Structure formats: structure tokens, C-alpha cells
């Protein structure tokens, strides 16, 4: 047991040097090296032509990335709202409702996301007639729905799993303390569920963000589309290589921190 006492002090010694530890992360080191290289090029004015072209296209690429993020955030918001409803219904006592939600979850989890994106893009009209108004129904909003459907099915499963992971003894204990059903759910079960759902929910968000790249296949002007246009316009071999690997790097820069944070939360969760 003496070791248990010694170990934490050793560890706190290591955390005092946290800055070099962060800098030792290979991805951050790579990012800093690239930034330094670009600064040196900018200072001396010797950047290769492909890199200059990339800087010329940079605003267009970032606008594309903003579209991807916009789609992913809205799809996740839609998926979470719908998924919580479906997940709650899937725990209802009625067998008919349970079977219906089961079918919903199975259908949208087993369909390829690309096919769902085609589905919402081509089946929905390009404008909506609401009363006297004609509201445009742009393609990117249809992609939001196309990604929101599988997201909702997955959120429903995550939610159901989290609720069922709470030991039923807690319900009984709370009942014996004269909590009402709604109170038990709101004050005891839900706070624990949210904590358990968070890592899987963030995993799902990262995977939905990566799926937004499919929007380019139905004509939404997203990051992938911007890169394709840039590569076709400039039409140089070295620029094509650079722009597609920049595409990969931008998605990685957005999704990798989410994955790292998820892993951190999961590790912290193990102590409960």
C-alpha cells in the first residue's frame, strides 16, 4: 500500500511539466512545424507555386468547411431531438410502440448513409408551399435531414442503452424514499444517463461530421466540392496532391480533437 501513496506524488511532479508534454504530442509538433515552414516561406517570399495557389484558395476551402460544420451541427441537433423521443418511446410499456421504434432504428441504422442522402435530396421537392408562401428548400437542408435520420436512430439506441444501464435497484430505492416517477427520472436517472451518453454521443457527432463529405455528391458546395473545383481550375499535378491532402488534414484537424476528448471522457468514466 505504500506504493499507492508514493505514486500520486510522482504523478503530480509530472503534471507540473505539462507544457512540454503537450508539445511532445506528435500531431501538435507537426502542426507547429508546418506553421513555421509557412512563416519562413512568407518572410522570404519563396513559397512554391502550389502553396501560393493553396493560399489563394484558402478562403473558399474554409467557407466549404463552414458548410460541413453547419450541416453536421444541425443534423446532430435534429438527430438528438428526434432520437431522444424515439428512445423514450422505445422504453414505453406498449408492445406496439416498442416494435415500431425497433423497426425505425433497424431501418435507419442498416441503410447506407449515402443512400439516405440521395433519398432526401431527390424525393423532397425543391421548394415548400406553406400557406401562401413558397419557401425554398435548399439541398444542404435536405442533407441535414438525410444525416439526421441515421443520427436519430443511433441516439435512440445510445439513450435506451444508458437508461437500461442504470440499476433498477435505484428506481426501487428512490420509490421507497417517496419520489414520484417523473422525479426519479429527472433527478436521479437522467443526470447519470447524460454522463454515460456523452462519449458515445460525441463519437456519433464525429462520424456524422465525416459523413457530411457525402453532401458534395448531391451538389452541395461543401469542402470536398471546393477542393475539387480548386484542383480542376488550377490543374497542376503538385497543387492537386496538395489540395486533396489539405482536405484530409482539415477533416482530421476538426475530428481528431473530438476523438481525443471522447477518449479522455471514457477514461474518466471508467472510475465510476
Amino acid at each position, binding site marked *: 500500500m505504500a506504493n499507492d501513496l508514493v505514486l500520486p506524488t510522482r504523478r503530480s511532479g509530472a503534471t507540473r511539466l505539462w507544457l512540454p508534454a503537450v508539445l511532445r504530442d506528435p500531431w501538435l509538433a507537426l502542426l507547429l512545424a508546418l506553421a513555421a515552414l509557412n512563416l519562413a516561406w512568407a518572410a522570404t517570399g519563396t513559397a512554391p507555386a502550389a502553396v501560393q495557389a493553396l493560399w489563394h484558395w484558402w478562403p473558399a476551402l474554409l467557407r466549404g468547411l463552414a458548410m460541413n460544420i453547419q450541416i453536421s451541427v444541425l443534423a446532430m441537433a435534429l438527430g438528438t431531438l428526434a432520437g431522444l423521443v424515439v428512445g423514450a418511446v422505445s422504453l414505453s410499456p406498449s408492445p406496439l410502440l416498442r416494435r415500431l421504434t425497433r423497426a425505425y432504428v433497424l431501418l435507419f441504422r442498416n441503410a447506407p448513409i449515402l443512400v439516405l442522402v440521395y433519398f432526401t435530396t431527390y*424525393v423532397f421537392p425543391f421548394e415548400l408551399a406553406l400557406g401562401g408562401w413558397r419557401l425554398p428548400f435548399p439541398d444542404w437542408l435536405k442533407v441535414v435531414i438525410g444525416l439526421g435520420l441515421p443520427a436519430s436512430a443511433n441516439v435512440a439506441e445510445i439513450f435506451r442503452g444508458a437508461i437500461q444501464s442504470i440499476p433498477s435497484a435505484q428506481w426501487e430505492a428512490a420509490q421507497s424514499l417517496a419520489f414520484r416517477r417523473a422525479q426519479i427520472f429527472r433527478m436521479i436517472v437522467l443526470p447519470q444517463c447524460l454522463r454515460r451518453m456523452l462519449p458515445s454521443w460525441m463519437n456519433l457527432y464525429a462520424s456524422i461530421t465525416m459523413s457530411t463529405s457525402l453532401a458534395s*455528391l448531391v451538389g452541395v458546395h461543401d469542402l*470536398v466540392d471546393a477542393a475539387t473545383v480548386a484542383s480542376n481550375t488550377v490543374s497542376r499535378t503538385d497543387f*492537386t496532391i496538395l489540395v486533396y*491532402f489539405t482536405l*484530409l488534414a482539415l477533416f482530421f484537424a476538426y475530428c481528431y480533437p473530438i476523438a481525443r476528448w471522447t477518449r479522455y471522457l471514457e477514461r474518466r468514466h471508467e472510475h465510476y
Partner: protein
Amino acid sequence: MFESALQAWVGFFKPLGLNYGFVLDAGELSAFGRGLWVTLQLCAWTIPVSLLFGVLIAAGLTSGRAWLARPLQAFVEVTRNTPTLVQLYCAFLVLNMLITQKLGGGSPIAPFAWVVIVVALHKGVFHAEALRAGIEAVPEVTMEAARSLAFSRRQILTQVQLPLAVRFALPALVNNLVDLVKMTAIASAIAVGDVTYESIMIWSYRDNVLELLLLILMYFGLLTWLVGLVGKWLEERLRMPGYGQ
């Protein structure tokens, strides 16, 4: 006989507002059938290749050699955190272009093969993570026993660790394979004639999107169900009492 069955099919769905008239056109019917066949071929190629990649990556990650494990770890992280479509573009539009330029006209690797390679590598990474968890779950006592019987590193991996890891990881592997089947739909992005691509060709003439999408969804549902069935059968067959639950 076949003709009349198709006629009956079209007639049956007409009152529901679904127009399956394309099956009466011999050219479009054969194109759709070809698409179904290509998707099946894609799955049949990609599943074993992805499992092979998975085993190789898992072996590298658990080898304990830093020069091998570090780059593989970086590769795993990049693959897990970037979209498959972008990976496919990087392979097909960039690497394929470089190979074509090097050889001067005509790349030896067809678009079909690129899809198999990219999807198999992508899913291979996920297989590797599952297998690694399985390999690390092999009890230390078992490893000691194998070492004391003078098994070499490779023998321990292939005859002790992997057979146990596969049983441990099987549910995750089957899950990955179901995902893999769904992922083959992105082949349509680089004009490989799979079922999604052939359907796009048909519905751009006929405007029967809903009808075709229902067929595609049913087809993928059937394929994923089959994969799940095989997985369950394997789980039953390989089950060792007291291990891996």
C-alpha cells in the same frame, strides 16, 4: 414465365403509386442486375481483404517494435478521423493520377480495385482495434505457458493470441463488416457500376427515385442481414465455454 412475373410485379405496385416500369426495359433491367452483382462482388472482395489488413495492422500494433507500431498508430488515427470519401479521392484522384503519369497512360489499378483497397484499409483499421483489444485480453498465464513450451513470437501470435482474440473480437468484427457492406455504396462516387450508380443512371432518365431507393435499401438490408447471420453462426461454432463473454 419471367416476363409475366415482371408484368405482375409492375401491375402489383402501380396502384400504390410506385412505378416499376423500368424492369420491362431489357437494357435497364440488365443494368440494374449488373449493379446488384457488382455490389455483391465488392463485398465479397472487400470483406476478406479488410480482415487480412486488420490482422496485419493488429500484429504490427502489438509487436512491441516502436518503428513499426508508431507509424501504424498514426495511420490508424488518420484513418479513423477522416471521411472515407476523402480517402477514396486521395487514393483515386491523387495516387492513381501519379501512377498513371509515371507509367505514361493507363493505370493498372481499376476504380473497382481502388474501392476495395480504400474501404478494406479503412475497415481494417477498425478490425485491428477490435483484434488488439482481444489480443490484450489473452491472459498472461496463457502467454507464459506458451513461452514455456518454446513457442516463437510468431507461433504465439498465430496459434495462441489470434485464435483467442478472434473469439473475443467477433461481435465487434461482425459489426464492422455490416458497416463495410453499407460503405461500399461510396463506390458510386468514382463511377464504379455498383447498384447505387446504376440506379442513378436509371432514375436520371425515368424519375423513379423512390422506387429504386426502396429496392436498394432492401438489397442492403438483405446483405447486412446475411452478414449478421454468418456472424451469429460463427459465434456459435467458435464458442469456447468460459471464454470471451
